[in-house]
């Protein structure tokens, strides 16, 4: 067997964002409160990208920051808030007052969005769902016309379904625990909308906590959710999901999230926060230095190891 080639997908964060996220692109992020690609979000802000259409099932701080930074003009998704910590104030200022600019949102339910990603990932034009019927999620349109269609089962059962259009992305972000140098990617813990959301990307920009030898992946292939040939760029970036958690690596930085929730309620508070944690920080390494080793050590996960299975035959 010939020697496999050395991966050319590995690249630094700034280069990956520059190369794969052009102004005006349709960008999918993900994570539903786990493994969110925050390091990429910070870098998009630092590079002051414009006119992005941001796609996701459940946004939190990631979308709020991009909106506050003026990087986004359209959203397709289902939820934007800070969960138990309250409302997303950059989003409120943008929708209610046009600060820093007006954003438009086309809304679906969580299940609806993930089925739209599934359609895109499978190369289909739409998917049917049984939710959203009878609600304003179908009746009120923003910028997609039509945003959905209600049809009767063509096979005669008389049942109604809502058809939702596929939601392709120019580039999908995924933050994973680990991959090998080819981008064969493994995640564990909750998957959220990451499976279909990632496959909805024409290109995939992957960030990982660590790169492992390919034999580690091949010893446990059931844990792989994306094969390397679908991945376009790999950025190894420890704590790339901070301030959220990554199963087996670190916990949520609750103090960081609470601080953001409190400060972002005013425009001045948001600007001060962004200066402190984004624009005044050169890159991810400087960000980690600013957090400090003690804080990171406190967040590091304690071991809860899985059992082993026999792959033999």
């Amino acid at each position: 067997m010939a020697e496999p080639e050395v991966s050319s997908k590995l690249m630094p964060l700034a280069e990956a964002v520059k190369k794969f996220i052009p102004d005006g692109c349709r960008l999918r992020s993900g994570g539903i409160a786990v493994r969110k690609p925050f390091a990429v979000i910070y870098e998009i802000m630092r590079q002051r990208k414009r006119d992005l259409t941001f796609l996701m099932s459940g946004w939190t701080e990631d979308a709020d920051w991009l909106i506050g930074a003026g990087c986004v003009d359209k959203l397709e998704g289902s939820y934007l808030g800070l969960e138990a910590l309250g409302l997303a104030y950059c989003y409120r200022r943008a929708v209610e007052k046009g600060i820093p600019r007006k954003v438009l949102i086309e809304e679906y339910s969580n299940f609806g969005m993930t089925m739209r990603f599934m359609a895109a990932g499978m190369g289909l034009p739409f998917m049917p769902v049984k939710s959203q019927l009878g609600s304003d999620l179908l009746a009120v349109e923003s910028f997609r016309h039509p945003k959905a269609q209600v049809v009767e089962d063509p096979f005669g059962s008389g049942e109604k379904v809502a058809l939702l259009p596929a939601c392709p992305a120019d580039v999908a972000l995924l933050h994973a625990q680990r991959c090998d140098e080819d981008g064969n990617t493994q995640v564990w813990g909750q998957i959220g909308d990451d499976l279909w959301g990632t496959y909805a990307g024409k290109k995939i920009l992957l960030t990982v906590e660590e790169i492992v030898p390919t034999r580690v992946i091949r010893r446990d292939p059931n844990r792989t959710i994306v094969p390397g040939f679908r991945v376009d760029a790999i950025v190894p970036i420890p704590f790339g999901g901070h301030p959220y958690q990554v199963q087996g690596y670190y916990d949520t930085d609750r103090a960081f999230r609470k601080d953001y929730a409190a400060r972002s309620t005013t425009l001045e508070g948001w600007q001060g926060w962004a200066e402190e944690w984004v624009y005044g920080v050169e890159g991810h390494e400087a960000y980690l230095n600013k957090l400090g080793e003690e804080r990171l050590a406190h967040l590091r996960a304690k071991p809860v190891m899985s059992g082993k299975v026999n792959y033999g035959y």
Partner: protein
Amino acid sequence: MAICAAREIRDREIAFIGTGLPMLGGMLAKYTHAPNCIMIFESGVVDARPKRTPLSIGDACLVPGSVMLCGLTEVFGLIMQPGYVDVGYIGGAQIDRFGNLNTTVIGDYHSPKVRLPGSGGANDIGSLAKRTIIMMKQDRLKFVEKLDYVTTPGYIDGPGGRERAGLPRGGPSCVISDMGVYRFDGATKVMYLDSVHPGLSVDEIRRNVSWDLEVAPTVRKTKPPTKRELQVLRTKCDPEGIFLGA
């Protein structure tokens, strides 16, 4: 409210749980009268047994000890949509007499007074669970004649409303507010007051509803929390006081 929510779950039921008070309700039920109920979270966790209070539906503490981990598509698509979820919990910023909910905007949709988070999984839960339990604070601005936006359908416009829309099943079975517990008339699908929380009167409750509220002829006082319920809630469900306060 968390205690009332817990009392609505029966043992061996499959419950779809959201962040905050529903989470405490689910955990309380499991530690008291419903040890075999199964809690499902939309981030993809089946039968979670968390050892601390989860801050969000995706909290990593839901993972160790669960029976299955998958994704949002799978829990909604394979468990919720075909009808395997007995009970789902949802909240709202506005509710009407038919139990329809708004969590999207206050005011005009295209230039709102307050932009709220939106549906998330709420519409899916309200559309597809066998029954839903609504938990929300109550005042005249929340219990309204007409919603500014229908995020999640209750009984829509009354009897047959869900069927006409094409929904396969379900609808709200009760509303738990900070003032009382409401249920829905089987024939008219209109919400009525079923029990009044301790220390409040029916008149006070009427003043906090903007339509002419129907009251059950047998309206009673909500059963006060038992010592055991309070103890389990404070020591096992939320010892840090994240949702209950210090």
